[in-house]
């Protein structure tokens, strides 16, 4: 009877500890993801502002600074994307589709469509704790209308 009871207690303990650890892991993973996502939201918004600001030169005022946008995003997100490869796509080229981005890589791109500048961050951070059924991927966009200076 005592052996049976201690065995039962062990099984119950194992179940509760397993569940508790699963919840703890899920909460930790979600917290890390939220921090990364917050940085990404701030980053793409900052990148969009840089891009919309115009470039140097005679025709620069109405030319979006696409080349300056991706480094601005990278500067903000890199401290929280530890171990993740951050790839800055060359200006005016859109980010590749999901299938072309390997896990552990984040792509940042800036494009212009008509008068609107779009800065996008897309990929899967390396530090995300993998939990089946939960997709900790990042795909964030900031759009802003470019500055218009009339002569």
């Amino acid at each position, binding site marked *: 009877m005592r052996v049976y009871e201690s065995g039962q207690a062990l099984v119950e303990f194992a179940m509760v500890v397993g*569940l508790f650890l699963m919840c703890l892991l*899920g909460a930790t993973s979600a917290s890390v993801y939220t921090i990364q996502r917050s940085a990404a939201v701030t980053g*793409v*918004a900052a990148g969009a502002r840089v891009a919309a600001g115009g470039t140097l030169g005679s025709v620069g005022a109405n030319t979006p600074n696409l080349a300056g946008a991706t480094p601005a995003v990278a500067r903000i997100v890199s401290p929280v994307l530890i171990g993740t490869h951050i790839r800055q796509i060359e200006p005016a080229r859109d980010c590749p589709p999901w299938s072309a981005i390997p896990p552990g890589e984040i792509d940042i791109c800036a494009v212009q469509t008509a008068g609107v500048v779009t800065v996008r961050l897309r990929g899967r951070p390396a530090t995300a704790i993998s939990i089946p059924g939960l997709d900790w991927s990042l795909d964030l966009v900031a759009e*802003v209308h470019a500055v*218009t200076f009339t002569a």
Partner: protein
Amino acid sequence: MDHARRGQRGQALLETAITIPLMLVLLLGFLAVLVRVEAQLELDAATSLAAAAAVAAPAGSSLSAEYARQTWTGTLRQYSYLRPGRLDGCSAYEPGQPVTCRGSALLDYRETPMGLVVPYPFHIESAATARSSTYRSR
């Protein structure tokens, strides 16, 4: 003796039946709080960009509101749980004057697992003010 064992098994089952849903509710509630904070941040970023776009339009033009709306909806359209609402106040930019935008959105958990613990939508708001560069001539 058999009666006592059956009682213990029943007790363990009851304990498990109470613990598992409770832990799930706690986890989903925790996620819901994170999403709430995240949604506010996303709305703040979109509204801030909208204000920046409004002062980027030619001075005295009705394009300010159009640029702001285009920027705001373009930035917010990607989130399935965040439905853009109204964007007010992004009136025509005038040199030297600030432009203030006020945006609202509906945060709806019901299409996510968090809808089990928060089965109703939240109304969230944000405001942002932008000024154009002092050196801008028009």
